[in-house]
């Protein structure tokens, strides 16, 4: 009787622990997935602004590998490892969004400078070259006419 009661208690307890671990594992995995999506969006925005995101993608790919391992561990019922991998993934992505936003700001500024120098500067320069040349031509022509009138 005691053995039967102990076994039943053990089964109920272990099932509850297992269910809790599974839920915890899923929560950790979902949190890591959300972090990855957030970081990916930040990296994508930085790339759109013209930033070099090679180092950001290395970090993202490493985090992705850890998340894959977390999924695999969860599917095998190894919830502790799943939580561990998911947490490692989250740790890997700490400070990522800030870094991506910094890169985005720097790239946006560089793109603005590039636009001002290479597009606006170039167009203004071209107009100036044409205007100055025309002015010089008319100035020289007038001077020549004056010289001819004197002679």
């Amino acid at each position, binding site marked *: 009787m005691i053995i039967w009661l102990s076994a039943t208690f053990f089964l109920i307890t272990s099932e509850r622990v297992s269910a809790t671990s599974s839920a915890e594992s899923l929560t950790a995995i979902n949190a890591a997935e959300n972090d*990855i*999506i957030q970081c*990916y*969006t930040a*990296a*994508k925005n930085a*790339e*759109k602004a013209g930033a070099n*995101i*090679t180092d950001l*993608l290395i970090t*993202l*790919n490493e985090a*992705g*590998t850890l*998340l*894959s*391992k977390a*999924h*695999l561990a969860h599917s*095998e019922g190894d919830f502790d490892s799943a939580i561990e991998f998911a947490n490692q993934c989250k740790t890997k992505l700490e400070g990522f969004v800030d870094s991506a936003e910094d890169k985005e700001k720097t790239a946006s500024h560089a793109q603005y400078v590039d636009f001002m*120098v*290479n*597009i606006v*500067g*170039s*167009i203004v*320069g*071209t107009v*100036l*070259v*044409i205007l100055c*040349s025309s002015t010089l*031509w008319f100035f*020289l*022509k007038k001077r*020549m006419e004056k*010289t*001819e009138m004197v002679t």
Partner: protein
Amino acid sequence: MRNLDEYRAIFLVVVAVAALLVASPALSRLLVYPRTEFFTELWILGPSHKAENYPYNVTRNQNYAVFLGIGNRLGYCAYYMVKVKFRNQSQEAPTSFGPVENRSPSSLPSLFNFSVFVADEQILETPLTFSFDYVYNESTSSVNFSGLKLNGNWLNMTDYTVSWDSEKNEFRGFLFFELWLYNASAGDFQYHGRFVSLRFNMTASV
């Protein structure tokens, strides 16, 4: 003294050349033919990093190496997911022809998923090392799998079997890699209409 009008042509040429030189940075940015094709490349290479010597006659627990490559030409940094699946000769393969929206993935469950982030106009090659563990069942004349070891990860394949193909005289199995792309507006991965496959003959000692 010569008339200034005689130099008009030379003057105009010099001005035109100078104007073009000054305008060249703007022209180089404005006169660019826009990209019209946006797509992803997916390939698989053999152990020597060439399209040759792909593993075919597979031995139990023997390690094989291939390279899976993804080239992103989508115009933005892409978040891909590669779904690793296995099928036998009687199970359907995914489709990779016709309009992308009409292509369908395999309905088989994936053994393993791994995510890959690739910047625009960049490629990423992932080395893959794998081995199969299986036994030959003489009574049913089939190969029964117990697992696949992929890059050190042990993947359960207990429900997978390959029957003898009397036409080809082999135990034919296919390890294939489906490419899925993260769709930010849908908030989920969608089949990207591409897959690569390795065909094996599972050799069995009787």
